[in-house]
């Protein structure tokens, strides 16, 4: 036991060793986090008046980011399935990159939700025993349960598998948990969709297609981020990323992308053809309503990006061209970020339940806090990666108890 803890600490020390570039990156992130912390202190001291959130649009940029990131976290499942279930070699070797991403994304989700609370110090009122969680009635409690559960499951799987790989032993005992993580990944995004979906007051969200749309868009933007991260990691570390892994993920994106556009089309048809009063939010998004056009340029940009990306990913020739693929990934990430951030949260509130149109646009403070949280996420991911990689590649030399000396690192 002593050795285990000691070895863990030795491996942990890795995060303090790095090139000047590594240190520059870390300090850059810390500085941006400083901005975020400052912005948050302003919000804390003065209240939400410094944000653009008002009674009419009561959720904004924080919740938009939260929703996007839940999708990113859920998308890790697209690596878990081929890796652990189908034992697809190229992905199996790098599945941990996805798991770290899920862990990071959930941490960011929790930060974004906390930033959105008017009284974050009372968050334990939601906890069992100490507080009074309104369970099972409130979907927000469900969301807290599934998100924290997902964080917990992924952290356990990640640490356990890493440790077993390091020991050169089989990680089979944890397979049930790995299998559980697959439906759980779907559940986090479904529950998040239900959070919006269950509100009859907001016709824009109150459509059965919402959860499938959430999953489809998550399963194209999440893997797109993963593809980019794969390449960055491959460039800056000794980890070798098999092009086959990237191709496989790109293929998955092609399917989900097409599904995402299809579902959007279903939604657009239903609303515009039936032309009921519930059309207003969609009309506001794409064409403007009563002279308010705040989201129109953004939404058309998003649609154009998504369609372009769809073409890139669906045509095998362009998908295999790595430069085009990367462009496609960026287009998808930006496209889905707009679609799910601005395009989901804000039209839900526009027009408001009393028919008022308040054109929401995040304030400087909100942007500052959000950038800070993104930097925190990047820091978490970097440090986790820095901790994991040497262990994974067998670079870390650790003093071993006698009986373990002959161990060989297999990864």
């Amino acid at each position: 036991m002593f050795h285990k803890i000691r070895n863990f600490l030795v491996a942990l020390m890795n995060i303090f060793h790095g090139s000047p570039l590594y240190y520059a990156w870390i300090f850059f992130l810390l500085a941006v986090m400083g901005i975020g912390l400052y912005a948050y202190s302003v919000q804390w001291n003065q209240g939400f008046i410094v944000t653009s959130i008002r009674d009419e649009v009561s959720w904004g940029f924080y919740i938009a980011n939260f929703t996007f990131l839940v999708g990113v976290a859920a998308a890790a499942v697209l690596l878990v399935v081929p890796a652990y279930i189908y034992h697809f070699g190229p992905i199996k070797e790098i599945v941990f990159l996805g798991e770290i991403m899920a862990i990071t994304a959930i941490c960011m989700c929790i930060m974004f939700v906390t930033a959105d609370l008017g009284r974050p110090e009372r968050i334990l009122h939601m906890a069992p025993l100490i507080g009074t969680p309104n369970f099972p009635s409130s979907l927000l409690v469900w969301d807290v349960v599934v998100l924290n559960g997902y964080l917990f499951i992924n952290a356990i799987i990640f640490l356990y598998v890493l440790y077993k790989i390091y020991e050169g032993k089989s990680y089979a005992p944890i397979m049930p948990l790995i299998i559980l993580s697959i439906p759980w990944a779907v559940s986090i995004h479904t529950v998040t969709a239900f959070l919006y979906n269950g509100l009859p007051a907001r016709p824009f969200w109150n459509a059965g297609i919402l959860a499938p749309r959430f999953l489809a868009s998550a399963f194209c933007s999440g893997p797109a981020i993963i593809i980019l991260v794969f390449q960055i990691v491959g460039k800056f570390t000794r980890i070798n990323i098999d092009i086959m892994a990237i191709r496989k993920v790109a293929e998955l994106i092609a399917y989900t992308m097409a599904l995402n556009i299809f579902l959007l089309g279903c939604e657009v048809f239903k609303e515009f053809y039936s032309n009921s009063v519930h059309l207003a939010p969609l009309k506001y998004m794409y064409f403007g309503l009563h002279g308010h056009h705040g989201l129109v340029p953004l939404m058309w940009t998003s649609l154009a990006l998504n369609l372009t990306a769809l073409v890139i990913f669906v045509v095998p020739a362009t998908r295999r061209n790595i430069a085009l693929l990367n462009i496609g990934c960026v287009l998808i990430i930006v496209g889905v970020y707009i679609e799910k951030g601005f395009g989901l949260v804000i039209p839900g509130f526009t027009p408001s339940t009393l028919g008022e149109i308040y054109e929401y646009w995040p304030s400087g403070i909100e942007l500052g806090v959000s950038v800070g949280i993104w930097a925190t996420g990047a820091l978490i991911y970097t440090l986790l990666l820095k901790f994991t990689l040497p262990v994974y590649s067998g670079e870390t030399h650790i003093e071993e108890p006698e009986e373990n000396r002959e161990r060989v690192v297999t990864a």
Partner: protein
Amino acid sequence: MKNKPDNKKQMNRRGFMKAATAGMAGLATQGCVNNINWDRFFQSHFKEMDKEELKSTLAKLEKEYSAKYGREFVVKATAPMEGTLFGYGLDLSRCIGCRRCVYACVGENNQSRDPQIHWISVMRTKMGDKWADLENSTRYYDPALVPEEGYFYMPIGCQMCEQSACVKVCPTGATWKEPDGIVVVDYDWCIGCRYCMAACPYGARHFNLAEPDIPKDEINTNTHYLGNRPRPKGVVEKCTFCIQRTREGKYPACAEICPVGARKFGNLLDPESEMRYLLEHKRVFRLKEDLNTQPKFYYFF
């Protein structure tokens, strides 16, 4: 906090420098800790307080508010009366849109003047216009005299739904429906997630965007724990049918002030009440009935 934050929304260069140097060192953390009212932090949920705790909590609040506003405060926790279920009626053909009710409510219920919070929104709609989605209505009309020709007015506040969407979604149970039908909020239990505001179909819930500002000479010192006691920043508040008045038998402030007598209030369980007569003899509708929220706020004409 020594470093007074910029009121401007823009993050400027100075802000960055400040943040990058002192920010991490705990500037924010210190501010955070100082801002918490620790006494209230350990307070229980209203429904979980026993008699003793409730009594001491009310005394503590009275002391706190009296010190803050320099006047004697009464904070009650009057229980609901047996056999009452409150209902509200509003005569659309009478309302002239004068907004007397809006401001009587602000005064009675200690709403923040800065930033402004109004529990009642008076919507103006052109006669003959589609108004089901209220999109063609406005609450910002400002003529010299009301009523204006060709318009009608519809005040909207909390509809006190029997199937309250807001209560259903609250993650901490900080808002609930009392036995007499009033939907209330425990301002010391609300975490400010604003899920209830997203869920409310009537725009009846309002968020304290900043520390509420109420002039000392205008504050109403006769308060109820679940009603008009001063609220902290960062929590949601709403109409309570003037719980501090109605649980003592009085009419709500909005009904008392209405110059045209368009506002009716009473006990739905009492067959002799004005509300029951109204329901039986008038053409009545409830807002957004298709959502099945079952409001106890009836519009009639």
